[in-house]
């Protein structure tokens, strides 16, 4: 018999489990769909069938599933027969049956995904690292020093957070084109190096640190930059990691901006690559799901690596000294 310390925990955990099922379901569906052929994806409209035909145990199959599997077997047989003939005599109407990795193969070949990955990684890492550095410096100034117009400047900066990105799209484009940066890495990186949100977030954290710390360090001979580098940064690991993850995710997922400012395939990022699978007359669900799975893979890996830090930072950001 398991002993339950607090009966409320049962309710809480039940809720959490239900919540996590809801959260996980789309991911599971995406991944399983990526292993299905078109007829399989589109035919199961009456109920949601998660497992692909290839791995689903027989007793779960209904009539429709069974007839589809039979058709597939028949197609495989015909295809094998056709392969025995010399190339010229084969009936072109008999198409190769679907293999489990076909969607991945199609997706990977349809677009230069290797390059898209490199671009996305390059832009994301650069932006995340540099914007964290800039934001922490700005936040340091706003939190520890007094200078003329400090509050006005801070308010102005916060004001930029209120403007929706869509409204800035065209003006920013024109500005960058005057600089001659359209269709370069600069246009993908530079506009995102300063983030008002990050500055705000870090300033709030820095403000909670005792001012005495700064004074004590100064008396001990610490220069302003030394205090930032030797004391402030090590103390603010949790908020930095949180911001890092936010920034990483936002850049990894950004779509409209990279699409607007780049023209060459060489400069395109993965989200733009994903959009190629749907168009005015239909969507190729299989390859789209395969490509999406490939796209989130690095994020999942990164999340597991940074998870410890992330949970820690979530737990301490609300704390006061």
């Amino acid at each position, binding site marked *: 018999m398991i002993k339950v310390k607090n009966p409320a925990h049962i309710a809480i955990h039940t809720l959490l489990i239900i919540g996590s099922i809801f959260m996980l379901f789309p991911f599971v569906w995406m991944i399983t769909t990526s292993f299905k052929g078109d007829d399989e994806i589109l035919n199961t409209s009456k109920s949601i069938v998660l497992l692909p035909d290839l791995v689903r145990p027989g007793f779960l199959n209904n009539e429709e599933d069974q007839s589809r599997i039979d058709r597939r077997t028949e197609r495989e047989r015909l295809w094998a027969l056709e392969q025995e003939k010399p190339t010229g005599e084969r009936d072109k109407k008999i198409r190769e049956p679907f293999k489990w990795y076909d969607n991945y193969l199609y997706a990977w070949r349809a677009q230069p995904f290797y390059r898209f990955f490199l671009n996305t990684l*390059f832009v994301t890492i650069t932006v995340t690292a540099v914007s964290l550095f800039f934001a922490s410096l700005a936040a340091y100034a706003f939190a520890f020093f007094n200078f003329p117009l400090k509050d006005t400047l801070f308010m102005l900066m916060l004001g930029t957070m209120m403007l929706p990105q869509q409204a800035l799209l065209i003006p920013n484009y024109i500005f960058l084109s005057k600089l001659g940066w359209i269709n370069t890495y600069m246009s993908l990186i530079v506009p995102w190096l300063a983030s008002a949100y990050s500055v705000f977030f870090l300033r709030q954290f820095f403000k909670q640190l005792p001012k005495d710390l700064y004074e004590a360090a100064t008396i001990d001979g610490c220069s302003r930059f030394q205090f930032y580098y030797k004391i402030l940064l090590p103390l603010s690991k949790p908020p930095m990691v949180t911001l890092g993850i936010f920034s990483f995710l936002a850049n990894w997922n950004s779509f409209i901006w990279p699409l607007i400012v780049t023209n060459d395939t060489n400069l395109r990022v993965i989200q733009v690559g994903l959009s190629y699978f*749907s*168009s005015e007359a239909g969507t190729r669900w299989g390859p789209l799901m395969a490509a999406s799975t490939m796209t989130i893979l690095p994020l999942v890996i990164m999340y597991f690596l940074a998870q410890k830090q992330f949970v820690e930072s979530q737990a301490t950001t609300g704390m006061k000294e």
Partner: protein
Amino acid sequence: MRNFLIAVFACWLIIVFAIRQDDKASAGLVKNEVDAEGKTQVVFWHAMGGPLGIVMNDLVNRYNKSQNNYYIKSISMGSYDTLAKKVLASLVAGEAPDISQNYETLTKKFIKHHKIVCLDDLIASETEDIKADIIPVLLDNNTFDGKLYSFPFNKSVPVLYYNKDLFVKVGIDPEQPPRTLEEMVKYCRIITDYHKQTPGADRSVYGYGCSKANVWSFLNRVLQYGGKIISDDGHKSQFGDQTAINAMAYLQNMLKEGIAKEGQGFDHQNDFIAGKAAIIESSIVSKVYMEDSINFNFGVAPLPGYIINPNAELTIEESEINRGVILSGSNINIFNNGDPKKIAGAWDFVKWFTSTEIGAEWSIRTTYLPVRKSSLQSSIMQDALKKDPNMAAPYVQLDYCHFEPRLSVWFEVRDLMADYLEKATIEMGPAEKYCEQMARDIDAILKHASD
């Protein structure tokens, strides 16, 4: 933490290195494939993705190899919406492409601001009478104040797709798709009832499928009922007319009876592929997307028409059926970027792409309409039609093809119509009510529209 930062920096360096390597590799590839050096580069923005994009790129590559003067750099923008946004932004920034796909409403804006080249000037220097060979409706569609300003490029028409196996199952002649709107209702009723009443049949099968708030389909029906979209002077809509009310009520009644279903986006296409929807109305271009997934015999037919003056003594064959369909798809503009060489290159490419043979090939591989009459008569087209009779439906409809009003406010009007069409099939009130309100709201927009 220090180690983590070092690791990130190392990763970053590796990525930078990999990008440089990839740049070098692709630079070599471009050189091997097509020697772009010494050629005038012409930038072409389009919205063709998926299977259509593959055909497009194939043709562009062939053009680049076929001659030594110009190099077409084709760039896909993914969707028409993004393409339009990018073209507008790039024009303001003074960095417009040399050619791009666009809708007529944008063309009008470009003409007003002198951003595009008038094609009549380019055609004038040709020995061949190109204009005489362009399919009339496509020529009208691109002529503004008597002058040709854009070139038809990827135009499509709506068609009916129907499941021949289902037709056979319920006892309808699979070679006789519905010819009139009434006949379609009749067929849908037979198909739905059969599946509801026969034991063991799949009860989820239904007659007619279409997408929700489908302006295109509604306007087609308005024409089929003999109606008009807007008045000749362009300041008044005709949606208060009985024809528009009939067009709206038609779908409402089918939905009420349960013999039709509306879906989001491409749901109806998926239902058709899955064998649930027996008849659907969609663009002919959807054929390219659906074909590979369909596991039954299917037919493609012209949209049904309407017998305006029914005579009980005449059969459907003998009666005069009023038909009408509306063109969709985009045209191509040549921008005036001040370099006559680039304009000449752009025109040369457009001419090549829409020429008799290439136009026919583009049409066969993508189902878009060819631009020229001679493409329709060409031997490759005739051979292809023999091989796949399903290809014929769009060409048959050319005789009674129209286009939507080319007003600058038209997209606004379309959005408004979509709202009312959606409301009409959700609330299921009398069609008169929605049509009247729709007409009133649209007239308010049209009254203030400048052109």
